[in-house]
C-alpha cells in the first residue's frame, strides 16, 4: 500500500517522486522580489521586497508559520510581520504549484519621527494581506527547494505631519492628544509582486 500511492502518483504525474519534509519539520523560506504598482497619481512604481518565512510542516500539504520582511514603498520603509500559510498541491513532485496567504502588519518602526521647527513628521504602518500563487522545485533529498511566486499585496500605511501642543491645554476630542494640528495621509498600496525564493 505504501508503495502503491507513489506508484499511482507516478502514473498520474509521470514524474519521479520526490522526498518531502517530515511532518513537524522546520521550514525556512527566504524570498526576494519586486513590488509593482501604480501610485494614486498614476505613475508606475517598482519597489523592493524581502521576506523570510519560518514555519513548520503541518501535514504533507500545509505549512504554517510567521514571516518577517522588508518592503519599500514611496516614502515608506515597512517591516511586515505576521502569520503565513502555504499549501502545496503536489508535495512529492519535482515541480509543484503552491498557494500562500500572508496576513500581518507592516510596521514603520525603523523610520524615526523627525522634528523640525516644532513640526513633527512620521510614518505609521498598517495591516497587510498578501495572497500568492507559486511554483516550487524540490531537490531530490527534499531538503532544498526553489520557488517563484506571483501575487498581490495590499498594504495600509499612514503618514503624518503634526504640530505638537506647547504649553498646557485642555484636550478636545477629534484630534490625537498632544497635537495642535495634524495632517494625515492614509495610503493603501496595492502591488503585484514577483518573488524568487529558496526553501531550506
Amino acid at each position, binding site marked *: 500500500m505504501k508503495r502503491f500511492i507513489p506508484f499511482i502518483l507516478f502514473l498520474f504525474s509521470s514524474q519521479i517522486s520526490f522526498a518531502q519534509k517530515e511532518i513537524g519539520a522546520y521550514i525556512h523560506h527566504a524570498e526576494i522580489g519586486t513590488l509593482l*504598482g501604480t501610485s494614486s497619481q498614476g505613475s508606475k512604481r517598482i519597489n523592493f521586497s524581502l521576506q523570510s518565512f519560518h514555519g513548520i510542516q503541518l501535514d504533507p500539504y500545509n505549512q504554517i508559520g510567521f514571516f518577517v520582511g522588508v518592503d519599500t514603498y514611496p516614502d515608506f520603509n515597512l517591516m511586515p510581520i505576521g502569520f503565513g500559510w502555504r499549501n502545496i498541491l503536489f508535495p512529492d513532485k519535482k515541480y509543484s504549484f503552491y498557494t500562500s496567504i500572508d496576513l500581518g502588519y507592516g510596521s514603520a518602526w525603523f523610520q524615526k519621527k523627525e522634528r523640525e521647527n516644532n513640526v513633527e513628521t512620521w510614518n505609521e504602518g498598517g495591516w497587510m494581506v498578501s495572497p500568492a500563487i507559486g511554483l516550487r522545485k524540490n531537490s531530490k533529498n527534499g531538503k532544498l527547494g526553489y520557488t517563484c511566486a506571483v501575487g498581490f499585496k495590499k498594504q495600509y500605511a499612514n503618514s503624518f505631519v503634526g*504640530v505638537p501642543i506647547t504649553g498646557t491645554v485642555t*484636550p478636545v476630542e477629534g484630534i490625537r492628544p498632544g497635537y495642535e494640528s495634524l495632517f494625515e495621509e492614509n495610503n493603501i498600496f496595492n502591488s503585484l509582486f514577483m518573488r524568487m525564493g529558496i526553501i531550506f
Partner: protein
Amino acid sequence: MKTTVQPITKLPLLVIALLIITGMPACQDQTTSTYTYRTQYPVYLQMSNFRTSQAVIESGKELENPGKIYIYNDFLLINEPQKGIHILDNSNPSNPISINFINIPGNVDLAVNSDMLYADNYLDLLVFDISNPRNIQQVKRVEDVFESMYTDRSTGTFMTLKDTVLTMDSDVNSDWGMGWGNIFWNRGGMFAMSSDASRGGGESYGQGGSMARFTLMSAHLYAVDEHSLRVFNVENEENPAFIKGIHLGWGIETIFPFQNKLFIGSNTGMHIYDASNPSEPTQMSVYQHVTACDPVVVNETYAFVTLRTGVNCRFGVDELQILNIEDPYSPKLLKSYPMENPHGLGLAGDYLYVAEGKHGLKSFNVADVMNIDKNQLEYLRSLKSVDIIPGPKSLIVIGPDGVCQFDYSTPNKLVQLSCINVKNPIIV
C-alpha cells in the same frame, strides 16, 4: 481500497479568490488625506439667559479638567473652567470626598471671603453663602462686573470662545496636501497663572474668551478682565459694591496679592500696585521682563518667577528668576537658574517647589537665594506637574492626570497622601 490521497484543502481556492478581490483595484494605490486642527470659534450668548435662575447645586461629580484650586478650611474648591465649582471635603487629605458641584456657566475664577464665595458667571459676579458647604445658597448676583466682555451692550450680547476641532477631508495627493501643512493654526487660548502660596490660590487654565480673574485683600475684591482692574468693597460680604475701574492696558491675565500689594501679570510685564488704601490702588512699577507665562511667588524680599518656553511665552528660555522686590518701585533681577520647563511654583517658608511640567517636580531650599541650584532637595521625575499649592494640611500638586496631595512636613521628602484622577487630563 482506501485512498490515502487527501482531498486538497480549499485553501488554494481561497487564495485565488483573495487574489482576485485584492487585485481588483488594478494595483493602483489609494490615497486619502485629512487635515485636523484645534481652534476656537466664537459663541454669542445673551446674558439675560443666565440671569433668570439661580445657579444649580448638583451632587458631587468627577473632575474633568481642574482649573483654579482654592483651599477653604477643610474644603477644596476646584474650578472646572467654564462649567462651575467642585466642593470637596478635604478634612482627611488622604481621602478627599467630592460633596457637590455648583453649576456656573462661564466660571473661571473664585475667591472666598468670610464664608462668602465669589464666582464669575460670564459678566456677572455671583455670591454664595458657603458657611455650610453641604448646603450652599446663592445670595447675590452683581451684574455687569466684567462688562468689557460685551460685544453689544444694548442687546446684552457677549462672546465667548469654544474649543473645537475642525477637519478637512480630501482624496488629494500628497503634494497638494502638504501645502495645508503650513497652515498650522495657533490656538487662541491664553494662559493665566497665579500661585500665591500664602493664600492657597491656584493656577487656572483659561481657555475661553472670559479671562476674568479676581482676588481678595483687605475686604476688597480686585477683579481683572483683559484690560482693567476693577475694585469692589466687600466689607458687607453679601453685597459687593463696585468702587472704581483702573485701566491697565491689554493682556492682563493674573492677579495676586501680597502684603497690601497687588502683583498683576500681563502680556507685557508685571504690574505692582500699592493697595495700602484698598479702594485706591496706585501703580508702583511695571517690571517688563516678566510675561504672561510666568507664575510668580513672593515673600517679603524676593519674587520667584519662572519663565518657560511655550506658545504664548515669548522669551524661549526655561529658567527660574529671583527678583529683589524690597523696593517695589524698582524690582531688581538677582539671579537666573536654568530649569527644564517650569510651570507653576509654590513657596512654603524657605522651601520652593517648582512644577517642571512633564519633567517632574523639584524642591529647593531657598534660604540662600544666590545658591538655589546647590540646594536642590528632591527631583521627582515621575511626578508630572503644572502647579503647586502649599496648603495647611498638604502640598497640593496639580498634574496632567489629576490633583494629588503630599505630606510635606519633612520638606525634603514628599509623601503621597492621595490623588484625585481627572476624566479629561490636560496635556503638558
